[in-house]
């Protein structure tokens, strides 16, 4: 009896304490909002938002609901995070490996890059790219064509839009290519394990990825046309490009700042990971006759990844949360659209702030879950 009491009493007290605090906060908020005549509720989500958003991945106009405005903001946050995570990873791996290069120039340039970009506050970098770098761009009518068909202007980057016919056939071919690559890999692994024969999987995979979709163009009736941006006059001195896709300068500045900033941290994770694999491993691998490439691919990287993944996950989470700085330069992310405009128009501060907090929490937990799954996959499997 005494033991059970000792075991459970502190825990019951702790739970009681938490419940009481939350209860107090809720009741207090409730009474006070009643006093001020503020209603609590999520009914506003279905009301007409009556404001427009600059840039949206889905169809949206002011006659849609606040719930849809939330979705627009969420998708914009996910978009900028996704693009930046890809860029910062590519850049981070390159810089991280470069820091370990034996070439003096490469090694030191990489070190300078890391020290420079990670030691300047992110908000300043965002302001720099938006207000300084992108402001130096020409007006639409004065812009030179990049690659013949794209235009980088102060109003955004205009690229041709793709107009597909029978897109689904093309996508099926792509899917078929991916499935055949997986089959091929399993077959190759099997062959290596049983007969010790090496198959150049990467080469075949690339070939499959190119050939199968190409066939869909020849035989599947797939066609692709480009809609080029055309200069249009708005008034005597102001022009814009019509047709094609326009990437707003706010998005570009944000992606630049987030990728460059976070890539420095990823680079450090990569460097730490590679340096964390003991030198003996490399020498042992070489002594059994593996080529330098094989040493890196089969011995060093699998071990380095184990060290790299957990801290890199943190950086991805940081990047996603940092993307909320978007509001400073008018990129319509979740914070600007929902916790900004929608909050202002409805006055539902507590509801909207809680929804926004929960949303960021969900995004972060999802990223963490994916990375943990990947980490599990590559960690040492004791046999």
């Amino acid at each position, binding site marked *: 009896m005494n033991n059970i009491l000792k075991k459970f009493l502190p825990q019951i007290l702790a739970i009681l304490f938490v419940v009481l605090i939350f209860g107090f*906060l809720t009741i*207090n*908020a409730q*009474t*006070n*909002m009643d*006093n*001020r*005549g*503020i*209603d609590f509720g999520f009914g506003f989500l279905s009301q007409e938002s*009556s*404001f*427009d*958003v*600059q840039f949206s991945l889905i169809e949206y*106009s*002011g006659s849609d609901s606040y719930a849809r405005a939330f979705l627009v903001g969420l998708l914009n946050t996910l978009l900028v995070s996704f693009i930046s995570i890809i860029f910062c990873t590519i850049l981070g791996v390159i810089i991280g490996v470069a820091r370990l290069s034996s070439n003096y120039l490469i090694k030191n340039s990489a070190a300078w890059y890391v020290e420079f970009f990670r030691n300047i*506050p*992110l*908000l300043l970098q965002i302001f720099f790219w938006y*207000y300084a770098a992108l*402001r130096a761009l020409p*007006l639409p009518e004065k812009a030179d064509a990049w690659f013949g068909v794209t235009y980088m202007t*102060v*109003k955004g980057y205009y690229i041709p839009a793709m107009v597909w016919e029978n897109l689904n056939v093309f996508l099926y071919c792509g899917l078929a290519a991916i499935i055949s690559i997986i089959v091929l890999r399993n077959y190759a692994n099997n062959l290596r394990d049983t007969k010790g024969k090496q198959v150049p999987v990467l080469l075949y995979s690339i070939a499959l990825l190119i050939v199968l979709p190409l066939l869909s163009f020849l035989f599947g009736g797939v066609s692709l046309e480009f809609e080029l941006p055309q200069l*249009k006059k*708005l*008034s*005597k*001195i*102001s022009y*814009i490009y*019509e047709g094609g896709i326009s990437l*707003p*300068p*706010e998005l570009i500045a944000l992606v630049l700042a987030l990728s460059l900033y976070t890539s420095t941290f990823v680079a450090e994770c990569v460097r730490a990971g590679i340096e964390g694999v003991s030198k003996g491993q490399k020498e042992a691998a070489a002594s059994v006759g593996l080529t330098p490439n094989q040493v890196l691919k089969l011995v060093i990287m699998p071990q380095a990844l184990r060290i790299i993944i957990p801290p890199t996950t943190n950086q991805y989470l940081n990047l996603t949360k940092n993307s*909320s*700085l978007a*509001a*400073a*330069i*008018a990129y*319509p992310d979740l*914070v*600007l659209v929902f916790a*900004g*405009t929608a*909050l*202002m*128009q*409805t*006055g539902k*501060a*507590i509801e909207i*702030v809680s929804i926004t907090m929960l949303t960021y929490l969900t995004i972060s937990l999802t990223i963490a879950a994916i990375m943990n799954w990947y980490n599990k996959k590559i960690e040492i499997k004791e046999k």
Partner: protein
Amino acid sequence: MFKIIKQLTSLVAMFAVLFAFSTETMAAKKSKTLENTKKRGFVRCGVSQGLPGFSNADESGNWTGIDVDVCRAVAAATLGDATKVKFTPLSAKERFTALTSGEIDILSRNTTWTLSRDADIGLTFVGVNFYDGQGFMVRKGSGIKSTSEFKNGTSVCTNLGTTTELNMRDFFDSRGISYEPVVFEKADEVVAAYDAGRCDTYTTDKSGLAAQRTKLSAPDDHVVLPETISKEPLGPVVRQGDSVWEDIVRWSLNTMIEAEEYGVNSSNADMMKTSNNPAIKRLVGAEGELGAAFGLDNDWNLRIIKQVGNYGESYKRNIADTGILPDRGPNELWTKGGILYVPPAR
């Protein structure tokens, strides 16, 4: 980092809402806000982050503007000293939370009086100190002379969390014009983006356009279009629930306007005590017991007029003489063809 600090602040503000509300109970004729203000020794006033003519700080941190003068008037009435005001610069997004959470006691920040704001979110508008309307500013060289010349694809810079965002949508939607809204949190960011050519036009209240135009690199290259697309009555706001405080702020503003109507100004106020007109005598505290209704002494209105001046003086000092809007337009007294009309102080 800045954003995070801001988010933290609003979080703290939220918790402040949770805790602070319950402690404020209302007794008849007693204003908790007034008591706290007297105890504190200064009036807590929320203003803009810099809008010349309305609320703007100079290099040494002195705030001026007609919105600022409303807070100074309240300080003169309640504390006897118009300088005893602590100004909190707020973005459009932060302003209402700051007021409802009790961080400030008066919000005097070119805020439009609308039904939903008045009724929905725990605020009370006490009056109008500037009648405004939304307009558009464009580059002179564009040759655009009217809003009817806007074409599909026009990019529009404006502020976040304002009625402007909604009016703009009504305007373009009803005309079937597609546009690109570029929405910034701070007015200075809007100005910088418009100045750099990011946007074809800049829209906000016309007074705001006139004031922000002075911040552009070449103000003379820009012109405000003649059309007004909305009604924007701007005025001070207080928290719902303290009706005495609400009355103090309302009648401080009304006193300034009525003083102009009766020709009482900062230099002749003392002499007006011996006026033959009872209305004027009431206005300078020489007759009646008007202050007692709010728990103030009888010289409260005299102090406002002496220390801050009447509405006309405030307008001239802040808006006309600075070249922002020399013509008073609708903000002229009703006796002179405007729509400025306040209930009598008696």
